[in-house]
């Protein structure tokens, strides 16, 4: 098994910098999810690790060894591509067998290895088919099997669920963590789907424009996003963002929402009088009685039942729209006037000018590789 380290890696295409002095360490056996919009440099990062493209600057270590100048075939990584990249002229069996052939395994070992992983991924019955005859889901599993079969210490998965249908994606999201944990491999998983990122990652690295904006556990990313952009990317329905200007009274720091003072828990002393944005997760809001302290009067605009939860769009007296999410079956209001309460503990406060979260003390600025 092996850890993975990228040290000050820079990659440019023409004049465009795709990866900007990026450093990253993935512990042995850890699953790290690279999350970010397209063009963030996620795929380029994977390819650098795989060795199919070379960095302009910086070093790549696998298992403590400098692999920067080593060709792809010597790095001992497994990779599944977003577009599957199956060999169209070979059967599924031969496709999966290629890593074993390269390691000069015996015929019987190859056969056993392929059948083993095929059984695990439930594609045993289509091994004799060419990729053309496989469904998208089968193609995806074949590509995954090919990456897994050699039990590589480092596994690179480039958005493998991107091109499969919703049902299969859901199934695989359940299956994959166990599959990856069983292998014990160090995994770098690229995705644009925040649910996938939350479900699979031990840690998530949020990338944007060639830089890692935040690195942390799924919970940290969700509860303590480094900035507004990240807060918006994680969560469905998306976080409510409202412009506020915090003030102070005897009970502490508060923000005014529809003339109601909502007190915040946290070290927000420095924010008094500054232009801020408050982030309220829809599930941190709840419908309450009028008599509740700090209840905010609202008008219900629309309600969307989503089976397991109900999302309600409400409008404050000042005309701002807010989404409220509650588990299905819990009491709420589906029309007319209502009151909501804010959970002051889970509210997030961002600086309006920079977009950075205020008080994000444990957020590491990875641009320069040191804590900020």
């Amino acid at each position, binding site marked *: 098994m092996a850890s993975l380290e990228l040290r000050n890696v820079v990659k440019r295409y023409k004049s465009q910098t795709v990866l900007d002095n990026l450093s990253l360490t993935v512990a042995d056996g850890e699953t790290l999810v690279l999350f970010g919009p397209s063009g963030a440099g996620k795929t380029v990062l994977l390819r650098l690790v795989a060795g199919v493209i070379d960095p302009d600057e910086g070093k790549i270590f696998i298992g403590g060894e400098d692999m920067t100048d080593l060709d792809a075939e010597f790095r001992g990584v497994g990779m599944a591509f977003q577009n599957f990249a199956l060999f169209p002229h070979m059967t599924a069996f031969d496709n999966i067998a290629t890593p074993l052939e*390269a390691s000069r395994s015996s015929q019987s070992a190859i056969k056993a290895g392929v059948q083993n992983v095929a059984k695990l991924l439930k594609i045993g019955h289509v091994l004799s088919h060419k990729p053309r005859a496989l469904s998208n889901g089968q193609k995806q599993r074949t590509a995954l099997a090919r990456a897994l079969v050699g039990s590589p210490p480092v596994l690179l998965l480039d958005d493998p669920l991107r091109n499969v249908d919703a049902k299969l994606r859901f199934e695989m999201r359940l299956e994959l963590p166990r599959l990856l944990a069983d292998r014990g491999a160090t995994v770098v998983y690229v995705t644009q789907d925040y649910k996938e990122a939350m479900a699979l990652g031990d840690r998530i690295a949020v990338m944007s424009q060639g830089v890692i904006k935040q690195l942390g556990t799924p919970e940290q990313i969700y509860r303590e996003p480094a900035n507004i952009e990240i807060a918006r990317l994680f969560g469905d329905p998306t976080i409510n963002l409202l412009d506020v200007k915090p003030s102070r009274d005897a009970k502490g720091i508060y923000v005014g929402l529809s003339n109601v003072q909502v007190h915040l828990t946290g070290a927000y002393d420095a924010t008094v009088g500054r232009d801020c944005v408050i982030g309220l997760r829809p599930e941190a809001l709840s419908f309450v009685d009028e008599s509740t302290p700090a209840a905010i009067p609202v008008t219900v605009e629309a309600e969307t039942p989503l089976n397991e939860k109900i999302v309600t769009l409400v409008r404050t007296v000042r005309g701002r729209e807010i989404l409220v999410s509650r588990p299905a079956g819990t009491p709420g209001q589906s029309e007319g006037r209502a009151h909501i309460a804010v959970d002051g503990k889970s509210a997030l406060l961002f600086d309006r000018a920079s977009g950075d979260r205020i008080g994000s003390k444990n957020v590491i600025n990875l641009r320069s590789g040191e804590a900020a």
Partner: protein
Amino acid sequence: MEHTSLLERILRGIALTLVVIFFMFPIVWIFMMSFQTNETILRIPPQLVFKPTLANYTALITGKLTTAAGTLDIAFMRNLWNSVFLSVTSVAVALLLGVPAAYAFARHKFRGSEDIAFTLLSFRFAPALLVLLPLTLYFQKLGLANTYIGLIWVYQLICLPLILWIVRGYFEDIPADIEYAYRIAGHSWFATFRKIALPLAGPGIAAAGLLAFIFAWNNFVFALVLASADKQPVTVGALAFITSSGIQYGQISAAIVLSITPTLALALYAQRYLVEGLSLGAVKG
């Protein structure tokens, strides 16, 4: 409805028949001429019914051309062999050199790669007659005039750019990820070239090879100037049938039939590769 579609079918049938007749008529006529003597060929009006003779083929195969002026030695079988040898060897050499070069041009964009590739293509632009004179002088100096090696070398002007440019396109159509996947699986770049790139570009290589073969086979002017009788291909050798006692239409026809047979057979055999090759790029792996 029924009536219209029937009419449509009839019209289409007629149109197809006309096209087939238009293109096949010369070949059929030459085929028929090859079984006639010069006298029956030149009869006016031409006759469809005649007494077939194998005399033309016998003359070609034995190499003895009997004319009114006497018996003439012709080297047709020798020419045919030269054609086969020159074309096959030229295409083989061009494939050996062109396919790896095409791969390099397709996969590695190095400084000036586009210029080099274009220069190679530009050999096809130059009229053959323009380069023939200097080429002849050089070849005489180098001792390459009237040698197979010299001819095969010159034939590369025809074959190499063709193969390079066609095959390069096929290599470029292979998604790079497929090759990356094979490399990551632990195979060398050469294994990747052999096991992935070559098979996937196979139909394209076959198509390019076939096209180059036909171009090489049909070449006339290089061989006319650079080769003497014993190295000449059929295209040049056919000139021998224009004798002092007249043009030997029967033998020319037989010679044409014999000389188009290899290319025709090859084209028919390779047809499925050509079609497969043309459609491969359209289907996403």
